């Protein structure tokens, strides 16, 4: 009860988040309510354990990678701004945004940024290339113990072979975009938030 004042969101903060992420006022307050309900320590930040307490997330084979995406490089806590910034990638692209001022900075939920988010799920060391090892790591996370190393290796090789156009045995971001060019990323990587 005592820390109630510090857990209320101020109007200025809501405006800032609105500008940065494009969420509406009511969406931000709802997501703040969700943030505080996950924050068991009541200190205004979430740790990895707070995320892992969600059973459906804990059983997701890529759960750990997704949770990682919330935390900035080398940090163990994420505040509400960071939380919203990551979620903003999954905001649906509205029609009126497509014709926005082209000189304004790219919104977090643009097609390109959504693809970059997906790319970074593979590219753990952030060297802008998905190496064979990185691909194998993700594959292993998704299949568990059900497929042998050799089979997984050949799947990885085949995937790189198909996507690699410049012959460096890695998948760059451009090659990644090419593979996914026909995918409706706007829909597949969006969550329908209530207004």
């Amino acid at each position, binding site marked *: 009860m005592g820390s109630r004042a510090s857990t209320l969101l101020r109007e200025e903060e809501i405006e800032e988040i609105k500008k940065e992420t494009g969420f509406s006022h009511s969406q931000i307050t709802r997501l703040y309510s969700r943030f505080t309900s996950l924050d068991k320590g009541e200190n205004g930040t979430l740790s990895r354990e707070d995320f892992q307490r969600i059973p459906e997330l804990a*059983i*997701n084979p890529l759960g750990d990678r997704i949770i990682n995406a919330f935390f900035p490089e080398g940090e163990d806590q994420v505040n509400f701004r960071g939380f919203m910034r990551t979620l903003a990638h999954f905001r649906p692209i509205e029609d009126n945004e497509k014709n926005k001022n082209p000189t304004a900075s790219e919104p977090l939920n643009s097609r390109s940024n959504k693809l970059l988010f997906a790319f970074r799920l593979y590219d753990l060391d952030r060297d802008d290339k998905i190496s064979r090892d990185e691909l194998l790591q993700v594959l292993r996370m998704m299949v568990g113990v059900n497929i042998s190393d050799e089979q997984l290796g050949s799947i990885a090789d085949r995937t790189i072979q198909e996507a690699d156009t410049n012959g460096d045995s890695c998948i760059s971001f451009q090659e990644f975009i090419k593979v996914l060019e026909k995918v409706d990323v706007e829909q597949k990587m969006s*969550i329908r938030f209530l207004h």
Partner: protein
Amino acid sequence: LFSTPFSCVSWANLHMDLRAKEKNRQLFRHDTNGVLDKKPQLSLKQEIQELRGCAGCLTSEFNLTDVLFFCRKAMENVVDDDVTKRFSPQKLDSWNLLTRNNHNFCHISLRLKVVWVLGLLLRYGVLLPLRVTLAITGICLFLVLSTLVGVLPNTRLRSCLSDKVHLMGCHICVRSLSAIITYHNRQNKPQNDGICVANHTTPIDGIILANDRCYSLVGQLHGGLLGMIQRAMVTSSPHIWFERAEVKDRHLVAKRLIDHVADKTKHPVLIFPEGTCINNTSVMMFRKSSFELGCTIYPVAIKYDPRFGDAFWNSSKFGLVRYLLRTMSSWAIVCSVWYLPPMNRKEGEDAVQFANRVKSVIAAKGGFVDLKWDGGLKRARVKEAFKEEQQELYSRLVVGVSQGADNAASDSAKES
């Protein structure tokens, strides 16, 4: 008596709405429908094949797009999941003038604050002391009378008296909580030959049910005041209390239960198969142990009205005494109890299926969400086995096709 707090609450909410409009601000309402626009979920197989189809590779065993399915699912669960919200009090659409429910309804006006303070004084200054006195009187009376009846020889007179003493104790406790209970379908009331199961929200559940007829409770023997009450209860009526060490011995527990149920003179056993308190919006996994015994099951659904007081005991947040104080300083505990027709295990049905069948009947009656998740997730981590299940489902999509490809390759090799 009842309508005054209710009209106060309605006035308060109307007032808040008006003031918010004045200040041209959107009044925050807890979205009781969640944050997401829920659409029907496709299966893992369907979604991934859809993704692969988009990318133009239906025959591949793996595609870079596969990861998008898990990614989006994970994000949806970060924003809204089915489980974690069951372990905190139900969020109300509007404020009921109880501080504890005041999450985001910050200071609106002076008038409202005055009403709130008056309500506070009334609840803590008048209602709480009255109720506590009544409760203490009731418990003392019960302890004395129960022990006295226990002294009598084991005759019909004794069981008759002990029933009356138990019911009296419950009536007083119910009054002390200002509980307003509506019993539905009394013709289905549990009989002496079975086990009564109900959804669990609070320790008061037992008192609410025992207010209508006598039950035999099952549980661990505690120390202190609770233990004293337990021992007094068992002198006059056969409850099933276990020592701490005995609780782990499942065969012992099962045997005692079966023996008890077989004896038609003894009351039905009351069990809460969820194993822990849930917040009354859903029914979670029923432990199968009560359903293995082959006895008749009498399902009961208990639904609390959250507007007058939150009955849910959040045992990880505060202890029993604080819970009782909170409950006794709410406006009232209003609940509905539905007795459902008795159920038996069908031919070829195993205990888990039977448990799920009973659970869905209770969920349907009470308007609860029927969940497969274990209530134990309140404190424990989810089992790795569930993640492995997901991995296995996905692997089938990868292996299934590549096995076909390998066969085709070996076939063509044979041919050439």
